[in-house]
């Protein structure tokens, strides 16, 4: 009987730690969900003399994918992005993070370009405004420019089908 209390404490702690094992410390909740996306105006990767800003993208539901040619996980993600682009259900914009333009362009030539347009953030400022802490990260932004969802890590078809597409459909229906 006198061992019951320590045993219970031990078991409780054990259970707590055991389930804690499943938590991924890399998946941080973003405070930006359901908040307006930060304002940005960035040059296009392929045409640096042209810029694209948040205001130009209002009125549509779109995905914004943060990537870089230096990012290994982006390479894994890339074929899925190509497939998402091919399905043409949502426009996909790229946010190229701290990359050399020529290397980013080479990447797109070599592996294909899934993006409607690619914004180049060489200084990494916009990326900080978006609270990005590791590429790839994918944001779902609605017609009013509000961030509705964020996925950290490489998007796969499974994640697209289960996490992104239902939300995209919902938002697109709200519009019509």
């Amino acid at each position: 009987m006198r061992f019951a209390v320590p045993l219970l404490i031990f078991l409780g702690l054990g259970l707590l730690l055991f389930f804690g094992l499943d938590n991924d410390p890399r998946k941080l909740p973003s405070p930006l969900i359901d908040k307006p996306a930060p304002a940005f105006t960035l040059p296009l990767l392929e045409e640096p003399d042209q810029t694209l800003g948040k205001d130009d993208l209002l009125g549509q539901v779109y995905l914004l994918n943060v990537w870089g040619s230096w990012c290994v996980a982006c390479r894994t993600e890339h074929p899925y992005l190509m497939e998402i682009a091919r399905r043409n259900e949502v426009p996909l914009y790229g946010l190229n993070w701290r990359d050399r333009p020529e290397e980013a362009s080479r990447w797109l030539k070599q592996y294909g370009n899934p993006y409607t347009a690619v914004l180049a953030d060489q200084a990494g400022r916009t990326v900080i405004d978006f609270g990005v802490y590791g590429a790839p990260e994918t944001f779902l932004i609605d017609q009013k420019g509000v961030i509705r969802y964020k996925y950290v890590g490489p998007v796969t078809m499974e994640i697209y089908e289960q996490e992104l597409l239902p939300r995209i459909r919902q938002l697109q229906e709200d519009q019509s």
Partner: protein
Amino acid sequence: MKRALILILLWPGWLWAAIDVLQFDTPEQEARFQQLTQELRCLVCQNQNLADSDADLARDLRMEVYEMVKSGQSADEIKTFLVARYGDFVLYRPPVQRNTLLLWGLPPLLLLIGLFFLWRFLTSRPATTEPEAPASDPLDLLQDEEP
């Protein structure tokens, strides 16, 4: 040989901390910058602060903090800026609020509970210990079991 090994083991790791050459207008600004980068977490290598981390993002965030300090913003303003983007997780010293009550409250609570039991333990015994209290000593119990 042994001495060399000990020296290597004791070599202060902070010597490898990332170094930027930054100019400040006042010593207060420099102190604020140092204080902030010590207290802000690097999001990439999560168990390092911004001052120690050499990750690209940490460097960018350091520069961001540096420029905000230079432009005269207070520590609170800078923290608010980063929390708005990265959440409370960037702070190594999380604010006291509803979802951190357990975090902040538990250690003092446990201390109080511990002190309570200590106090009960100490007061439950007579102030003058009787030397011949039979079977209260665990060693006696052990000896009893021997044939």
